[in-house]
């Protein structure tokens, strides 16, 4: 059987997220409780989480989470890491035996800092250097897969139901200002853990629900800019598009949303002149990054989160607020499961991003 990456696997899903705008810590068990309510939307073939602000003691170091199929892959990877980074700390990621989670790979965590002279030699800035090193491990070291490499954030994922995955990774031991979660419903078995979501590059992580119809147009477009879509999943290509638009092209989150979920031309025509010009410009400039077909996504990044639906709103997405906390979910009940008494609940319109950020005073 082909594993994910050798074959494209469509998936349905559940997603949810929590963002604490004042930066107050949210326990990983909370997000697990929320996603667990949407058990029916997953089929046990993938679950995962991304937490932000979870490694305050190492916040200036890249936190690498790596799956190894065998010891040899680990040795080879560590040799590579040693020659490119200062490894400040390394350990197995603590896990707990869970009956339903089987075939676990070796799961290691490293806190690293790029070697200064290597960065200088590469003439790249730190993020780009690190991203390229991680992509190199994933492409060239057989049996090694970096699935998380941002600062002060981490992805935890496995083949299984999300609530079991949370238990497996002892998510209740982590606290962060933001969490996203994903329960996957792939049409066939992904064969390995790397296929689970969130998908992340540096601190940018994406969870996604739906199957996009523009996949190959988007993939071939983003692969022009030194990205390689190894997993052939929608989430991967969406992550790369956002990374390209935001980190490399310098678009704002709102502008990126206007690209990937561009309004219809007929809708653009109804806007005032300046806005219509702006929207038409973005659509023409980045036409290959228009994503069609159903999607709802949650994009996590350092200090913020964005939720976005496709322009026809073919997937559900609910946003709610309680005090300084914003909640996102495929279903309202999953929010009520962790916060029954909400100040406000609403469904954002298709193509209209909802963006939350840490309050300035909260960023210390």
């Amino acid at each position, binding site marked *: 059987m082909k594993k994910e990456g050798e074959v494209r696997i469509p998936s349905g899903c559940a997603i949810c997220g929590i963002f604490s705008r004042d930066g107050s810590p949210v326990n990983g068990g909370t997000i697990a409780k929320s996603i667990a309510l949407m058990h029916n939307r997953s089929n046990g073939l993938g679950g995962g989480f991304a937490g932000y602000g979870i490694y305050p003691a190492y916040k200036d170091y890249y936190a690498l989470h790596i799956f190894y199929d065998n010891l040899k892959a680990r040795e080879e990877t560590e040799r590579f890491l040693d020659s490119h980074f200062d490894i400040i700390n390394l350990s197995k990621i603590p896990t707990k035996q869970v009956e339903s989670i089987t075939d676990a790979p070796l799961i290691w965590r490293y806190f690293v800092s790029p070697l200064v002279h290597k960065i200088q030699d590469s003439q790249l800035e730190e993020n780009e250097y690190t991203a390229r090193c991680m992509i190199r491990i994933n492409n060239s070291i057989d049996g090694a897969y970096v699935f998380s490499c941002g600062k002060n954030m981490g992805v935890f994922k496995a083949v299984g139901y999300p609530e079991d995955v949370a238990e497996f990774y002892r998510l209740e031991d982590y606290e962060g200002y933001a969490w996203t979660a994903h329960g996957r419903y792939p049409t066939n078995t992904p064969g390995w853990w790397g296929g689970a979501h969130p998908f992340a590059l540096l601190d940018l992580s994406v969870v996604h629900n739906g199957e996009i119809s523009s996949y190959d147009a988007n993939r*071939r477009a983003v692969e022009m800019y030194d990205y390689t879509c190894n997993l052939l999943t929608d989430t991967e290509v969406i992550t790369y598009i956002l990374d390209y638009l935001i980190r490399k092209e310098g678009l704002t989150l709102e502008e990126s949303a206007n690209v990937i979920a561009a309004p219809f031309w007929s809708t653009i025509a109804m806007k005032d002149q300046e806005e219509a010009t702006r929207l038409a410009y973005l659509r023409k400039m980045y036409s290959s990054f228009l994503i069609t077909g159903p999607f709802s996504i949650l994009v996590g990044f350092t200090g913020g989160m964005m939720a976005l639906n496709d322009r026809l709103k073919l997937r559900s997405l609910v946003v709610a607020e309680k005090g300084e906390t914003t909640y996102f979910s495929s279903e309202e009940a999953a929010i009520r499961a962790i916060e029954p008494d909400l100040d406000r609940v609403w469904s954002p319109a298709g193509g209209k991003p909802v963006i939350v950020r840490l309050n300035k005073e909260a960023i210390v």
Partner: protein
Amino acid sequence: MNMIASRYRINIRKDECVLCKRCVRECSFGAINFNSEKNTITLTHSKCVDCQRCAALCPREAIFITRNQNTYANNHLYTANTLNEIYRQSATGGVLLSSMGSGIGSVHIYFDHLLLNASQVTNPSIDPLREPMETITFLGRRPRHIERGKDGKLVDNLPPHIELSTPILFSAMSYGAISLNVHKALAKAALRLGTYYNCGEGGLHESLYEYATNTIVQVASGRFGVHERYLNSAAAIEIKIGQGAKPGIGGHLTGTKIIGDVSATRMVPEGIDAISPAPHHDIYSIEDLRQLVLSLKEATSYTKPVIVKVAAVHNIAPIASGIARSGADIIAIDGFRGGTGAAPMRIRDNVGLPIELAIAAVDQRLREEKIRNEISIIAGGGIRNSTDVVKAIALGADAVAIGSAALCALGCHICASCHTGNCAWGIATQRPELTNRLDPEEGADSLVNLVSAWTREIKEIMGGMGINSIEALRGNRLALRAVGLHEKELEILGVKYGGE
């Protein structure tokens, strides 16, 4: 001694014929005549080209054309056509001349080996009649990066684009090769459809300047009728390097056709031959192309996109890459099956590449060089229907150009006799009694119908795939699966085999 047996036989059912002599009047090739002494119709089968004009207009449907049943000795190597070509050349010493696109069967029509996808369950199909379904296409150059003003707002740094309501244009066909009425029909249709026609290399007739917003003017090696007003009376300018039917070959419009308005429009004296040199003599290398592109932009104050049209030849991928770096905004690729008003037959049937392979190779190469997004691709040469359009776009084209199919909408039956100038349908001729047969308004109606019907079908197909905007189809090769092709072809087309 004439060794060449007639290709066709004209058959008139005597019991149906009422001797109305319509066929005699319609036949512009002299194959059907009337003998008034004997009061009978006389047939000269050798002159029949099977244009179907007589059959179509016979009020009794009494006429049918068949292949000549007289058969040469059965031989796979020396077929009747092969023998006839030898006989013709041994009798005349001439280069074989033909027209329209190559129809030889030994080269795959790859479109017919590609099947389209549709949504089932994992994502929804879309009903194009009731939900928005966008076919609007913009063609032109894109800058590499965005720019922001001092206020942080995005600056519109896009060079001029042309906007098409549907990703179909009309290919370049020159006045001279086709009649003015055909140009008028194409211009009117382009205006009504929100797309563009291309006046070809024979200049722009005075009566067509009013269609400037929907006109693409061509600058070919002969530079006929090219002047400042010509360039500035168009939505875009096309530099013609070559065409699919005769890559590397120039053109030759004989002095007998350079009469009246053709002469005036081309700005060539009456009766003098109009030669289009094989190359542009100001382009002997790729850097010279840049010079021509920029000089045209200079002449039009950088307000119009410049298209460079080339034939699909073996090196099409690096050629396209060179064009993309020349400052051109759009590259038009004309495939092996592209039509022509006249071309040496050996060239037409043996030089170049099918458009499907060319699109795939060019799109892939431009991506590998990271410049695909900077330039648009128009594909032409053998686009016969809406699925050819969809497949061309899924392979990587931005839009397609149709020539032969558009002429078929005006009556053409692909008899491949354009070079005779006797077109009975009034298309590829300048004989007034023939050109009068085509009414520009009716012709425009047919063209509008054709392109509208294709657009409806394109929307239906896109809806089935759950795609509601044409740009999400472009280069989306997972929308295609191949059948009956081998590994190498799949690799070049970049598509998977059915069932994969």
